[in-house]
């Protein structure tokens, strides 16, 4: 049997398509789910935040932040020097802030001045997490059991340390309060950011709470130790219903316009929880060792410190 030339060309094209299709998948996505793209960024990226169209990633072993243009995520756009071993990053007051684990400081970076060192602000204690709002920047101090406020005008720590509980770690600002996760005693403290006082009772949450987010009138807490999400009314500061079981080890949270994304840091699952839903829905899976998640520029961004990657999860 002799095939005509157009049929032979068609067969070759078909075979090539079979070859090229998985190769393209390998280039863009060696992950478990379609719509993801892993980018190699820094040596130990441990946290990520998105501000406008710029993705900011802390790289702990380089003592720097690197940025990615969300429109061209295949290249590093700029680098900024920080203090020693930055772990967490936040954006606010026209700056980007890092909590530096090794020297107990916070670095304030001006996005308009890349390739330069930011302003180093000594905390006088450990710097575990940082959050920024209209009343200042806030730093949790881990073993000291306190949070401290930085005045964003003078770039100095002001006021006395605020005792919040045992080993405060994650911070979130919202609903006119600062919400502090006390990982050491499994509670959340609500701090009045103008009075520098804890308001109301500390709220018991689940085992080994690791992250907090404020969205849709609710404070959401990821309890890594028992695989649950605790909901707290942002108005009354009281728990809402029973914790929602999501399984795995929920270790990081990010809010989209209409739902909450939960990162299971053990299995790599990304789950979506709608504000009025009683169950979370699995939307994707990221291989490796995902550690933190942020949302912005039309995507979710997930860092993997061990593999040195940032995964873009298309919206």
């Amino acid at each position, binding site marked *: 049997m002799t095939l005509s030339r157009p049929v032979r060309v068609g*067969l070759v094209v078909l075979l090539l398509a079979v070859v090229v299709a998985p190769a393209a998948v390998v280039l863009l996505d060696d992950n478990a789910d379609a719509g993801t793209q892993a980018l190699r960024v820094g040596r130990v990226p*441990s946290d990520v935040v998105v501000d406008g169209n710029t993705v900011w990633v802390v790289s702990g072993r380089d003592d720097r932040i690197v940025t990615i243009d969300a429109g061209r995520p295949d290249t590093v756009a700029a680098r900024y020097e920080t203090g020693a071993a930055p772990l967490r990053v936040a954006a606010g007051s026209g700056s980007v802030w890092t909590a530096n684990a090794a020297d107990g400081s916070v670095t304030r970076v001006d996005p308009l001045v890349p390739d330069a060192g930011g302003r180093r602000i000594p905390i006088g204690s450990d710097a575990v997490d940082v959050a920024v709002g209209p009343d200042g920047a806030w730093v949790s101090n881990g*073993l000291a059991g306190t949070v401290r406020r930085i005045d964003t005008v003078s770039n100095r720590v002001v006021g006395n340390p605020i*005792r919040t509980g045992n080993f405060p770690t994650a911070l979130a600002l919202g609903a006119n309060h600062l919400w502090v996760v006390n990982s050491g*005693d499994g509670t959340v403290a609500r701090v009045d950011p103008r009075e520098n006082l*804890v308001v*109301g*009772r500390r709220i018991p949450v689940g085992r080994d709470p*690791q992250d907090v987010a404020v969205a849709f009138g609710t404070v959401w807490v990821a309890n890594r130790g028992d695989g649950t999400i605790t909901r707290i009314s942002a108005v009354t500061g009281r728990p809402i219903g029973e914790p929602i079981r999501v399984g795995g080890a929920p270790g990081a949270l990010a809010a989209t316009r209409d739902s909450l994304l939960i990162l299971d840091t053990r299995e790599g699952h990304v789950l979506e929880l709608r504000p009025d839903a009683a169950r979370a829905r699995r939307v994707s899976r990221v291989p490796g060792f995902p550690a933190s998640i942020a949302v912005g520029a039309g995507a979710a961004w997930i860092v993997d*410190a061990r593999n040195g990657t940032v995964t873009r999860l298309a919206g």
Partner: protein
Amino acid sequence: MRRIGVIGSFIVAGSLGTWALAAPRADDRAAAQPSLSRQLDLGVVAIEAEIAGDLVRSSGTVIGAEDELVVTSAHAVWGASTIRVTTGIGVLHGRIVARAPCDDLAVIDTQPRLPGLVALRTGEAPAGDALLTAIGRRRAGPGDVGETFVTIPVRQASAGGPARFDPVLPPLADAMRLDASIVPEATGGPIVDRAGRLVAMAQVTDSPGAARNTAVPWRTVRRRLDELRSGPQRLFVGWRSQYRCASAMNAYAAAGHPGFLPGSARLNAPVPATRLPGTEELDE
């Protein structure tokens, strides 16, 4: 046509191979077994503890990769107001979650949780004079990661048994002597055999008159760790009987750090919240 068929077969086979390599595996964490040097990078940590204003350096061994737990020498973190743990995936903050002062052990919980640490493979300490390596780690500046490890070749000089290694601390119930001294910064760090298996944990202090060649067989450490059970809020319980040695540990800390107060060594002391006067009892 035959040529197209042959080429096509190669292409399809190659394609399937590529696809198979790219396909997600059931457990890509288990499949991604790191090299020996990477295992040490991810399984040995440097610890900096601030005790009564003094900086104390030691090392530690990752014991629970999923839980990000580290075991080290209790004397190196007793009464610490700050604990920094340098790992292969960043500098983390530490909190003591269990202590065994009689055996000079402390378990440290690292925060925030960064998945990716590795617990070293374990083995029995070889009999005779087989070469072992004591490994310590020290935090260094950026770009100095390769220089942060201290490796000391050692051999076992005497097998396990009771041994006093510090004039103030209680004697260890089951310790082995080594034929070389270990620097105090490597205390709490692993001693590995030639295959990189964890066989013992270094136990040395910097006290005058201390024996700097002591290690505890890993099977002894493991047996003690196996006594631990989950307690409230990620603390561990099961070492209550060890607290008879807490006063010796306090005496050791006071001798090395003049500003040390026994109250600072309380484990997981409750933190009263900063409140408006008159509302301090709200949480009780």
